[in-house]
């Protein structure tokens, strides 16, 4: 292996492991501030370090530190202490590992070698995701059972029944999708979506398979135990469900596992239905061919975006009551300086690229970076949809949940397979 090989392996493992971890902080923040704004509240906006609140992100650090130093209780009545400790590990590990097959950029070609941009380079693709997320429910069952607590067991029971029922429509929705794509390799699936339908509509999964998209997204919500399907932890009936006996970092692992699972299922939804890392109308080849104009366009857009953001921030980042020498205004001024420094750095890099490195390998690296950004932005938007749905819809009743899974989604998925295969056979 050359040094370049090792570097790229490290890079892709780092992205595969750390992006979900970083997204935990972002998603917890998004959930809390988003929930607050949906409900006309302010959300966590006080925790600060020297007056810098980072829009409330500091609160996450404070909560994390609190959870680390809390007492770690293992209930004395539990007869299965090993499984009790193992359960949160399984949940978190499965959530994290299932991201490994999601391609976050197109295959990078450097010096005639191909580097696949996903955590683990393998062809299992979507099957890996199905297998691992199905495995995550073992963690929940183990947690509920080893807690030796009726609420825990009930929560675990609900979670397992729910995941098993919703994996069927999810898998069937995937079948019709795979009939269209003709592959299970996620990178090839994203390539397929880079094409254009009738020459002007991006051939995204959601355009080709709207019904499968709806079924898959609904099932994905159920798989991640998110509202409106979070019966496993329905606090009004089950206190906290399967994690009722957990405290400190073991609870935090469940909590973070939920957000990692949310991030991963968002990224899978993006990859399958919304074009993955593809920028609409700009496939990888087009981007590489027009790398120069694209980077010039970026040079124009970045300052405009920064100016808009700064304007919005200066307007909103202030105290809404009488306060001499408002520290929030000072804070916003510091942020503005940081943002413009970042803009200068980006511009310098782009200028350097245009002057010295344009053409050749740098084009491809630029395109990969662009695609990673696109992928993250799309995933973030899908995660926002998760939060948005959570703070809009009430929880399902348990029988309604099973009714929806078995009597609505399952027949619809079957019908969808039938229609899709008929169309595919007729067209081929």
């Amino acid at each position, binding site marked *: 292996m050359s040094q370049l090989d090792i570097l790229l392996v490290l890079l892709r493992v780092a992205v595969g492991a750390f992006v979900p971890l970083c997204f935990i902080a972002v998603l917890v923040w998004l959930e809390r501030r*988003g929930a607050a*704004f*949906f*409900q*006309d*509240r*302010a959300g966590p906006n006080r925790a600060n370090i020297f007056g810098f609140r980072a829009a409330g992100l500091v609160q996450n650090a404070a909560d994390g530190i609190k959870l680390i130093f809390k007492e770690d209780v293992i209930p004395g009545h539990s007869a299965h202490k090993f499984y009790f400790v193992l359960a949160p590990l399984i949940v978190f590990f499965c959530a994290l590992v299932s991201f490994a097959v999601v391609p976050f950029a197109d295959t990078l070609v450097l010096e005639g070698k191909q580097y696949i941009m996903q955590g683990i380079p393998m062809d299992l693709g979507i099957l890996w995701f199905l297998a691992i997320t199905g495995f995550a429910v073992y963690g929940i069952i183990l947690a509920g059972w080893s807690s030796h607590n009726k609420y825990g067991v009930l929560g675990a029971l609900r979670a397992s029944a729910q995941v098993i029922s919703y994996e069927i429509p999810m898998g069937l929705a995937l079948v019709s999708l795979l009939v269209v794509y003709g592959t299970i390799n996620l990178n090839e699936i994203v390539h397929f979506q880079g094409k254009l339908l009738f020459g002007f509509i991006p051939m995204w999964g959601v355009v080709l398979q709207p019904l499968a998209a*709806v079924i898959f997204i609904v099932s994905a919500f159920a798989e991640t135990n998110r509202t409106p399907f979070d019966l496993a932890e329905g606090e009004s009936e089950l206190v906290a469900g399967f994690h009722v006996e957990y405290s400190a970092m073991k609870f935090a692992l469940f909590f973070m596992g939920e957000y990692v699972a949310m991030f991963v299922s968002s990224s899978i939804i993006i990859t399958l239905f919304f074009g993955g890392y593809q920028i609409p109308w700009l496939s990888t080849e087009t981007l590489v061919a027009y790398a120069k104009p694209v980077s010039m366009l970026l040079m124009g857009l970045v300052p405009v975006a920064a100016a808009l953001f700064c304007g*919005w921030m200066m*307007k*909103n980042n202030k*105290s*809404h*009551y009488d*306060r001499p020498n408002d520290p929030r205004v000072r804070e916003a001024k510091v942020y503005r300086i940081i943002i413009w420094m970042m803009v200068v750095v980006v511009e310098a890099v782009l200028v350097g690229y245009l002057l010295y490195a344009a053409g050749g390998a740098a084009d491809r690296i630029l395109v990969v970076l662009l695609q990673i950004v696109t992928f993250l932005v799309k995933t973030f938007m899908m995660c926002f949809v998760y939060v*948005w*749905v959570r*703070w*809009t*819809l009430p929880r399902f009743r348990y029988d309604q949940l099973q009714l929806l899974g078995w009597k609505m989604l399952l027949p619809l998925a079957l019908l969808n397979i039938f229609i899709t295969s008929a169309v595919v056979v007729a067209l081929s």
Partner: protein
Amino acid sequence: MSVTVKIMERKGSSFLEKIYLFEIFKGMRVTLGHLWRNLCDNSRLYVRHYPEVKPEITPRWRGRHRLTTHEDGTVKCVACFMCQTNCPAKCIMIEAGERMDGKSEKVPVRFDIDLLECIYCGYCVEACPMDAIRMDTGIFSVTSYDRESVFVGIDELLATKGAFDEEEYKKGGA
């Protein structure tokens, strides 16, 4: 006399409503509207920035207690034990002594209220025949780092002033 019957329209039976998705999107549009409004201008949040901006307290609010005084500054309380007897939380502890200034026979030498026990029901105020104890200080937040400082004695109760003028307080029905 006939009973007026209003028949409510049952929602949720039309085909579009049964598909459920469109109704979900309608609901999501509403919540997104709130998010967008607050994101564009967060001064429109329906919140009070509490520790800095205090809520308005009405004269009828039962806040922390105080003991009232006569015009000349002497204590009104005659140590009749009405409030202590009436207190459902048993948080008032009075010790009576002889009064020397001729205003009455007795005077409290000790008048302690354990604010951790107090349930702020206001029965002491209603029981008092002399209008000597009131809960009109407007103090709504009794917090402390130690228990001793929320165990208030007669000096502190006398030192605290009412937050409202006499007329406003009387209007409150006391």
